[in-house]
């Protein structure tokens, strides 16, 4: 029974035209291949997450005891919690220039227990790396790696303090390479590619990074009862509440202490600068309670000059003297300069006292007169006193107070001028030194604030060194060598600031962001109030993520994207099948019969083939036009635009598809002409010509060869196209590129040098630029929406290529050698037509917009090179947070009168590199 069935099938298959076979293969490939890609994607996304349900991270560090405390505080909600250090960095294979970005997981046995994996915790100085990392590096077990790491720190990356915190490279030996199989490589992030991870010992890495007892990531698993109805983790509020209950103040990046020698408390930022939201919350809480508070900002690396005398490696503190005096000194009027000023308090008051109404030196918001002769310390040289006098020409940069030691060292007294240089973070990255000339408004005795070594953060690299010579080079002034006197001061007073200045002016000079604070002093009884305010504000410091949910959401989005992006391929396959129904609706026997009739009437094979081709012309043309139209529609649907290059690509695709179809038809026609079976046509079913059989076998072989060649050709043509589509889908899952329509808005960033120059902002420090730009734009009736330098700096814009591309055109541009289209003139902020009707700035944008978000005109210009309509803000945001960020941005823009339309996620084909 089997033989006739097989024979029948064979006969049927023999009559299948090659184009039908080709179309069927293409259709199958269009379904099977995305499915295969999808399965691989599922493996790649879901498996590395392991058993982690939620992750708590911070830009600083937590106590290593926090996970255990969190389990207790959660009261059974959290069943497992494990801490680790996750550090971004670059790994370089020893002895080569091969390097790759990696994520270092410093873990202990608990980490592997958490994930129910074999315990392979590497020992000191060794590492286990994932196969993806090994492949990227070309490394194998036994070789050595050099890790250059971005050390987790409470110190903001864009600050003068952070500039000195560059970790030394760490060398490790590869103990093993983990296979990429399910569960073998565990990471804390959902990554689009195979994770490149270097696992090292937690304790060893903590020692290497001088972060003993600190972690920066906590992995959580929850009890079944606590999980959400859909199996997901509990609500964020529940987790954060438990975290708040378990976390100590240092876990929030701050500490409260009593200031030695002073009758006040201090809230210090462990990283040197408070989070703006936290500082605002604390100041507001104290203000509402009617309690005094003294904000301060300190920095390092100050050099003082007076004539030929130089004081190097000083620290500096900006403080509000009025508030400080009100907080720390007994109330009551002071009589500076009188004979009763023999106490320390009186000396301090007289040095900083406000005394309005008398002729004096302008110091920020206060007038300082009746200058007090400084009382020399026991060890410091007595400064030269000059009595009360006023300089003929006030210094352009304001006035400062010096402590007695500095004044004596410089041999200056009140009313003299000093030159000062100090490091600040610059927009372009790194530190630059600023210079200024200041009046000496007074000398502060070496007590309390005059000798307070706790005003600066307690960073080992800053305060635990034997000499300022050991400071990082970024903090030192190359033109001011450190003298023995400086080292002597260091030994006695350590980081006590030698220079003081008013807070507002200090923030202008020292900080890239207005309102920055490093310490808040408050009264002894207000510690609980401050701690409560801190706890209210700290949720912004931690980030809570749910990798498993992220993976599921990402996979859902991927599937949709996969279906959307592979739709053109399916359409093309379906089109071919439909074309077959139109043009090749006659089965093979009919083709052979027609050929037999023609042959019987004396037509040659060429004439028969020509007849077939003639009849196929219109269907082929229609098919090509239809394919082009479908391709154009798909492109328009995906990219919202069609440019000249798209038209070129589509035309080329039309020609290609038409040519392929024509070749198929031609091959079929020739085969039909040569395989026409006159005996069959004449009804002689049994007659089989031996020679014709051989001929038939030959033609069948030829047909198979033609089909194979066509399949290979089409696969070659279609593969990069579809691969591009799918890789876009996969690449696009990292960020979502939103666009928020901002009618006629121009976005300035510090990277927009031309725009900055056009508005004359270069002469202003970064912190002023937003305000100055706003004022100038308003004056000139050319409002511009600006982004404060602090935001741009925080986002590290200057480190990014800031290039958004459409991958398809770029791919084809490269292939065709077509240059990218030039940016339209309207993108130039100096172009009046492009300027806008609204003004404003985003002073608190940094609080609204989380790290990783990108706002830049350059991206817009690259992404929409031909766009001449309304302007957009393009935001690269994590997919999960996209809606939140977009809503926050719209609210923020709305507060400044900018009318926006709802954000719109750009299609998958768009990517930011």
């Amino acid at each position: 029974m089997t033989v006739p069935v097989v024979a029948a099938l064979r006969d049927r298959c023999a009559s299948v035209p090659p184009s039908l076979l080709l179309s069927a293969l293409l259709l199958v490939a269009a379904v099977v291949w995305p499915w295969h890609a999808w399965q691989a994607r599922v493996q790649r996304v879901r498996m590395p997450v392991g058993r982690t349900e939620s992750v708590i991270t911070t830009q600083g560090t937590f106590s290593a005891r926090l996970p255990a405390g969190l389990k207790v505080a959660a009261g059974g909600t959290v069943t497992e919690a494990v801490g680790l250090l996750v550090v971004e960095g670059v790994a370089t294979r020893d002895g080569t220039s091969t390097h790759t970005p990696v994520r270092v997981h410093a873990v202990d046995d608990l980490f592997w227990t958490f994930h129910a994996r074999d315990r392979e915790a590497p020992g000191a100085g060794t590492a286990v790396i994932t196969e993806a990392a090994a492949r990227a590096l070309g490394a194998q077990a036994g070789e050595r790696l050099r890790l250059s790491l971005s050390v987790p720190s409470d110190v903001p990356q864009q600050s003068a303090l952070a500039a000195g915190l560059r970790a030394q490279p760490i060398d490790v030996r590869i103990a093993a390479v983990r296979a990429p199989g399910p569960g073998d490589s565990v990471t804390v992030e959902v990554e689009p590619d195979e994770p490149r991870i270097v696992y090292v010992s937690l304790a060893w890495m903590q020692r290497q990074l001088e972060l003993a007892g600190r972690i920066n990531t906590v992995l959580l698993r929850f009890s079944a009862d606590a999980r959400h109805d859909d199996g997901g983790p509990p609500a964020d509020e529940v987790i954060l509440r438990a975290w708040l209950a378990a976390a100590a103040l240092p876990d929030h990046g701050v500490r409260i202490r009593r200031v030695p020698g002073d009758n006040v408390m201090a809230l210090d930022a462990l990283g040197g600068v408070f989070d703006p939201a936290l500082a605002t919350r604390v100041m507001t809480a104290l203000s509402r309670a009617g309690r005094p508070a003294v904000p301060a900002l300190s920095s390092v690396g100050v050099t003082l000059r007076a004539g030929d005398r130089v004081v190097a490696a000083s620290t500096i503190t900006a403080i509000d003297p009025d508030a400080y005096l009100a907080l720390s000194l007994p109330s009551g009027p002071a009589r500076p300069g009188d004979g009763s000023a023999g106490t320390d308090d009186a000396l301090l008051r007289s040095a900083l006292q406000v005394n309005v109404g008398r002729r004096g030196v302008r110091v920020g918001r206060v007038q300082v007169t009746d200058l007090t002769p400084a009382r020399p310390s026991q060890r410091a040289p007595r400064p030269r006193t000059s009595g009360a006098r006023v300089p003929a020409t006030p210094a352009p940069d304001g006035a400062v107070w010096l402590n007695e030691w500095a004044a004596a060292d410089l041999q200056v007294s009140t009313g003299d001028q000093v030159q000062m240089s100090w490091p600040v973070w610059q927009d372009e990255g790194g530190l630059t030194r600023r210079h200024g000339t200041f009046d000496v408004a007074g000398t502060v005795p070496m007590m309390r604030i005059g000798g307070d070594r706790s005003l600066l953060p307690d960073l080992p690299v800053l305060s635990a060194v034997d000499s300022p010579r050991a400071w990082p080079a970024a903090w030192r002034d190359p033109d001011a060598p450190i003298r023995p006197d400086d080292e002597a001061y260091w030994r006695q007073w350590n980081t006590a600031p030698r220079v003081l200045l008013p807070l507002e002016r200090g923030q202008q000079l020292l900080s890239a962001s207005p309102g920055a604070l490093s310490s808040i002093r408050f009264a002894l009884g207000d510690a609980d109030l401050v701690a409560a305010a801190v706890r209210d504000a700290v949720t912004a410091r931690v980030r809570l993520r749910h990798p498993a949910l992220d993976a599921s959401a990402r996979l859902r989005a991927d599937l949709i994207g996969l279906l959307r992006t592979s739709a053109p391929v399916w359409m093309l396959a379906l089109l071919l099948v439909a074309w077959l129904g139109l043009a090749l609706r006659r089965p093979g026997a009919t083709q052979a019969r027609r050929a037999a009739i023609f042959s019987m009437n004396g037509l040659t094979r060429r004439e028969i083939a020509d007849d077939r081709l003639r009849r196929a012309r219109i269907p082929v043309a229609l098919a090509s036009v239809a394919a082009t139209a479908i391709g154009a529609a798909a492109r328009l649907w995906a990219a919202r635009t069609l440019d000249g290059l798209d038209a070129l690509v589509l035309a080329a695709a039309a020609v290609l598809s038409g040519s392929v179809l024509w070749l198929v038809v031609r091959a079929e026609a020739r085969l039909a002409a040569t395989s026409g079976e006159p005996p069959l046509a004449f009804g002689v079913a049994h007659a089989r010509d031996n020679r014709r059989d051989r001929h038939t076998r030959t033609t069948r072989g030829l047909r198979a060869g033609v089909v194979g060649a066509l399949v290979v050709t089409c696969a070659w043509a279609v593969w990069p196209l579809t691969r591009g589509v799918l890789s876009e889908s996969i690449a696009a899952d990292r960020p979502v590129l939103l666009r928020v329509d901002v009618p006629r808005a121009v976005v300035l960033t510090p990277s927009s040098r031309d725009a900055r120059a056009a508005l004359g902002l270069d002469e202003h420090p970064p912190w002023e630029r937003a305000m100055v730009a706003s004022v100038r734009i308003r004056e000139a009736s050319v409002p511009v929406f600006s982004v404060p330098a602090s935001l741009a700096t925080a986002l590290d814009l200057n480190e990014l290529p800031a290039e958004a591309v459409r991958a398809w055109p770029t791919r084809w541009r490269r292939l065709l050698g077509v240059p990218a289209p030039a940016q339209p003139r309207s993108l130039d902020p100096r172009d009046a037509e492009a300027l806008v009707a609204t003004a404003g700035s985003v002073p608190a944008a940094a609080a609204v917009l989380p790290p990783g978000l990108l706002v830049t005109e350059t991206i817009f210009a690259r992404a929409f090179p031909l766009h001449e309509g309304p302007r957009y803000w393009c935001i690269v945001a994590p997919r999960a947070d996209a809606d939140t960020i977009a809503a926050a941005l719209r609210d923020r823009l709305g507060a400044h009168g900018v009318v926006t339309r709802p954000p719109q996620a750009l299609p998958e084909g768009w990517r930011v590199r």
Partner: protein
Amino acid sequence: MLTLRAVSKTFATPTGDVAPLRSISLEIAAGARLAVVGAPASGKTTLGLLAAGLLVPDAGPVLVDGCDLSALDTDERARVRRRNIGVVTDAPLLCPTLTVLDNVCLPLSGPVPDLEARDQGRALLAALSLDHVQDARPSQLALLDQRLVALARAAVRLPRLIVADTALRGLAPDEQRSWTDVLLRLQHRSGAALLMLCDTPAEGAACDAVLALRDGELTEWVR
């Protein structure tokens, strides 16, 4: 005009070789008519295909107007066939997508006839009183008309040989007479040799001679 000398043909079949023709020799002069009568599967169609150059013999030459078809390749035989041979069969073998006129003109200038070919075809159809169906499709015609159109197509180039392979099969007696009359008129018009392959001797009554094909050999018809 048609000469076969000791022509043989063998087919391989699943049940063994079949030799419908064994060393057959015959000769038909221009204007002469020969009928070959045989039972079904006796080899009549094979003989017709060999004579038309649609099959190549295993042995022996097939000469049409002095040209040995067995020595030519497929395209050369097609050209000879187009120029000198007209073939009609019991199945009309009309191209269903072409009109009657286009079918008739097929040997003249292919599936897209030129004006001269069309004029020639129209004249022939008019002579056969078929001009009213020249724009119809074959499927719209009655069986006799389809056979007549096929006959017109075979004779339109004034061939030197007409091969009629059981062309009367399926027709009513009066239709057979009508169709035979037309065949004879056209054969007379072109002066072609006529090879009629018949199921019964009556079908070849109009021919000059009647032969029988039995066991692969030609013999004199014995009534």
